[in-house]
Every structure is written in C-alpha cells, then in structure tokens.
C-alpha cells in the first residue's frame, strides 16, 4: 500500500507532537493559567467595592439593624471592629470610610461620626454617598415621615460586557502567536542542529509536503487551543460569546499563518536555540503588551495607539474580539483581515528569504 508522503508527515508530526507532554503543557495550560489569573483578578469589572468599617459602640437593636442593612448593599464590604483597630486600618488604606455608632444610637438625635480616606477620594466619595443616603433614610424612618420624592427603579437587561469578554478573544490571539512563534522556532532550530532536516532532504521528499505538514500540525494545535480557551471562558468565567465559531476559526488559522512564517524566519536566521530564544522574545513581548491583549489600547497615549494599530497581533485580536463580542461577519472585519493578509504576505516573504535547511 502506497501512502501519501504529505499525509504520513502530517500524521507523524501530530503523533510526535501530542506525545510531547511539555509541548502540550505550554500550548494548552499556559494560556489557561494566564487567563485564570487575569480572569480572577478581573480588572476593571463593574462597580468598585468600598470598604466601610463600623465601630458599633451601642450594640443594641437599632445599631444592629443599621449594620445588617449596610451588609445588604452589594458594593459595600463591611468590616466590624474596635475604634482603634478600624482607625488604624483606615490609616493603612484598607478602609475607605469608618463610621462610629455611638452608644446613644436609637435614643433621639444622634451624630454618627465618619472618618474617610482622603488618599482614595473616588472610593471614599462613594462610601460617603452610601452612608449619607443611609443616614437620611434612617432619619426619615425614625421621624415617621415619608420622603417627598422617591426613586422608582426598573432593571433593564443590557449586553453587560465583562472583562472576561474582553480577555478571552485576546488570550486566543495570544496563544495563536505563541504557538506559531515558539512552537516553530524551537523545533526547527533543533531539527536543523541535529541534522534531522538534512536527513529528510536526502530523501525525495518534496519541500512543499514538508512545510504544509508542519503548517497543518501547528494549526491543529491552534484550533485546539481556541476550543479549550472558549470552553473554559464559557463555563468557568461566564464569557458571553455572540459570534460565529467558524469565523473565529478562520481568523485564528490565517492569523496563525503569520506567526508560523515569522517563526520559520527566526529559526532560519538563527544557528542555535541560544540565539533563537531572545529573537523570538524580542518579537513576542512587545506585541503581547502593545496589541491590546490584556488591556484595551484606548488606555495608551495617542501616538502609541497610532503605531500599535498596525501590529499583526492587534489585527488578529481586534478581529477575534469583533467576532466574539459583536457577532461581526467576515465582511464587517475586512479592514482587520486586510491587515492580517498583508502581514501574512510580509512574513512569508521574509521566511522564504531567511530559512535554511542546515546550520552553515
């Protein structure tokens, strides 16, 4: 039975790849770990919590009611303690506001003293507003007056994007880049150094078959990474996926091609792993932090935004984000796709110029 060289090369390198535990660890677990860490920290998500310290000197029915109603407010994290310890916490910056309920609470007109943190005005303003509103309402209740104006609230379902919704497509873009760059750079430099590529060249193997088999192997990994990151995002972090899976995969695979070609170029230009690793890091680190993976690029100074909008990783992550958050069609992200294709062409040209089969 004759077997296609291309299929055998692809099958063999897939087998070899999935038997290599280290490679699987890096390609699947590391992006998950990063996502887990950032997902748990949950940067910039929703309302800030304010830390309010309560010193309950009265400890009677009324003061306990105040405490329990404060506990019912979502944005408030309530701490209870003695006067000295709470004041100390405030000085340490661990409280935004410390309120003292004197023993006279519930017995006529009483002043509640509140110390607030001047170092963090944003949070202490929120804490003060909450306390004010609370004190007002309590006063009305004690006086038996109903307020002249009331607020009638009605909840409306909104898209309610969370940080995870921003993060997941970014993480997918990031792992596409890492797999493309590092997966290719290290294996190819090693194969070159150990003479494996030379041994293959001594057979009638077609170069095209070899490169396509490597491409397919890496892109399979990329597809798997996308699946795992999506699944974890959906089930563990409540990621809202609004888009088309197929589009996501298409952008992921074409984007993967850019970084595979870059990896080949780097492994072509370097003679050993010692020179390849710094070059690969030199390419990947700036891209990782400047392409809006973890944080939106809108936080950058304007000149940096202008430059970084042309980064290949920006195009890929923006495209993935539009697809997964806005449910964008391929036509809607055509500008990003154009950028991706231009980068792909540049990377392929550089790779064909720089790649060599042996260490010269």
């Amino acid at each position, binding site marked *: 039975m004759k077997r296609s060289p291309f299929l*055998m090369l692809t099958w063999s390198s897939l*087998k070899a*790849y999935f038997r290599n535990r280290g490679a699987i660890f890096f390609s699947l677990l590391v992006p998950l770990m990063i996502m887990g860490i950032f997902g748990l920290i949950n940067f910039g998500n929703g309302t800030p919590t304010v830390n309010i310290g309560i010193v309950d000197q009265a400890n009677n029915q009324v003061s306990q009611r105040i405490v329990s109603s404060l506990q019912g407010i979502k944005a408030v994290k309530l701490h209870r303690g003695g006067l000295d310890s709470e004041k100390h916490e405030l000085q340490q910056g661990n409280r935004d506001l410390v309120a003292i309920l004197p023993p006279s609470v519930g017995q006529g007109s009483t002043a509640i003293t509140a110390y607030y943190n001047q170092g963090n005005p944003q949070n202490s303003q929120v804490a003060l507003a909450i306390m004010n509103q609370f004190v007002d309402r309590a006063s009305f209740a004690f006086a038996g007056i109903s307020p002249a104006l009331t607020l009638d609230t009605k909840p409306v379902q909104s898209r309610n994007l969370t940080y995870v919704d921003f993060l997941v497509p970014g993480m997918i873009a990031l792992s596409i880049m890492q797999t493309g760059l590092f997966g290719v750079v290290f294996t190819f430099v090693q194969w070159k150094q*150990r003479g494996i590529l030379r*041994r293959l060249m*001594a*057979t009638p193997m077609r170069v095209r078959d070899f490169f396509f088999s490597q491409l397919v192997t890496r892109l399979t990994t990329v597809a798997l990474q996308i699946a795992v990151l999506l699944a974890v995002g959906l089930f563990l972090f409540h990621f809202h996926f609004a888009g088309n899976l197929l589009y996501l995969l298409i952008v992921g695979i074409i984007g993967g091609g850019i970084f595979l070609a870059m990896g080949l170029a780097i492994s072509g230009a370097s003679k050993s792993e010692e020179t390849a690793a710094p070059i690969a890091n030199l390419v990947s680190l700036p891209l990782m932090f400047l392409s809006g993976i973890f944080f939106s690029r809108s936080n950058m100074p304007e000149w940096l935004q202008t430059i970084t909008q042309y980064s290949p990783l920006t195009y890929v992550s923006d495209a993935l984000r539009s697809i997964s958050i806005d449910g964008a069609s391929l036509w809607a992200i055509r500008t990003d796709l154009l950028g991706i294709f231009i980068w792909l062409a540049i990377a392929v040209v550089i790779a064909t110029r720089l790649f060599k089969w042996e260490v010269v």
Partner: protein
Amino acid sequence: MSAITQTEEANLQLDTQGFAIVVDGLRKRYGSLVAVDGISFRVKEREIFGLLGPNGAGKTTTVEILEGLRQTDEGRVLVAGIDVRKVPDKVKGVIGVQLQSSAFFDGLSLLELLDLFAALYGRSVDAMALLEKVDLKEKARSNVNKLSGGQKQRFSIATALVNEPKILFLDEPTTGLDPQARRNLWELAQAIRTEGRTIVLTTHYMDEAETLCDRVAIMDHGKILAMEPPDLLIQRLLDKGFHSQRVERSANLEDVFLDMTGHGLREG
C-alpha cells in the same frame, strides 16, 4: 564539459555500463576555496568503495554532491546511470543515505519512523523485517533516544534501506563505537553488499577501510591522490622501501581486548 555531442553522449553511456557511479572532472568552489578540484573516479557495481582523507579534504562535499544535496560547479556525475545535475530528486530515490548525525524526530518509535521514511519514497515497507535485518527487532517500539550508539547507527542504516537502494552511502558509520559494535556494523555492511548493493563509505579508520573496502580513493586538498585496492596501496609503499616504526606482530591490542571481552554486543 559543455559541448558533448550525440556520439560522445552515446559513448559515455556505453562507457558507464557496469558502474554504479561515474564522476568526471567534478569541481566545486565555495567562494575562493576550491573544495573539490576536478576529480574523476568510477565505482563498480557491488563494490565497497572507500573515500579516505583528512578533514577538509573534500570527501564530504564530494559525497553530498553524489547524494544530490549540493550543486556541482563543473563536471559530470552519474549515480546509478542518472545525471545528478539534471535530476537530483531521481537520484535520491535510488540511493540510501546514512548521515553522521543519526538524529530523528522525537516521539516516534522505530517502526513509525521506518513507515514514515518509506512513505517519503512513495513506498511501503515491512518495517519489522527491516529491523530484524539490523538486529533491532526487540527495540521496534522504542524511541531512537533510547538506543545505544551502535544501535542508532544500525537504525540509521535501516532508514537508508527502506527504498531498497542500489547504492548505499555510509558516512563515518563507526565513529564513537566500541570494538564489538564496530565489528557488528562491518558484518552488516558486508551483508548488504552481498544483497547486490554498492556501498560508498567515508571513514577516518584505516583498519575499517582495509577490512571492508574493495578499493579506496585517498583525497586531499580537493584532489584524489591514489585509487587502488588497499592491499595494492600497502604493497606499493613497501616496494618503495618503507619500514613501519611499529614492530608488526600477529596480534594487536584490539585482538587482546576482544579476546578478553568477547565479540558479543554490549547494549541494552
């Protein structure tokens, strides 16, 4: 070399009958360095032909040109009757190559690697039978990095045999092996020749060349200095009145070593 007429071409074709390799006026430069300086030689079919010479003599370049891995600057090279210059890929299909560094992909077993190599030649192979031939049947499901030095070289030869080549190139196959493993590899080479294959061997070990080769070519500075059967070369030297400093005895230290440790292979 440029203008070869039809009749000359026909004559050459006749001339090359019975030869596995024909090299005429081969020249190769790397910049200003002349690596191979217009050499000509022929390797007969079913011959074990040794290419000897110090490092940098031009043997590796010559062999790589024969294997279709490098371009020639000048000269005519026929391997199994095929012009390497015109169709290097066709040459690659009928030869087998064992390289000095016998590394292969990690994560694949010997059987899987042989299947892969066979596929690269557009063939399928009885991998188990091939492993049995090189005495590696018990290692069929191991990885290459679990093999000893001698086993690696034998496996490397197995990969070079997947396409049933007419000509087998062995590049320093016994470098770094212990005496037992070297002898074992010599037996393998002789067995392969008995199957009707031609072997081109490069080596730095003169005892190896003396034992295995029907003829050797000694190269230096890109030129062939002599090309004869080893016995004839030795006789010529003696005829010139050469006397070895060494007292020739009917046994040497290697014989002592093998007498004490036996001929059996030492590998896991």
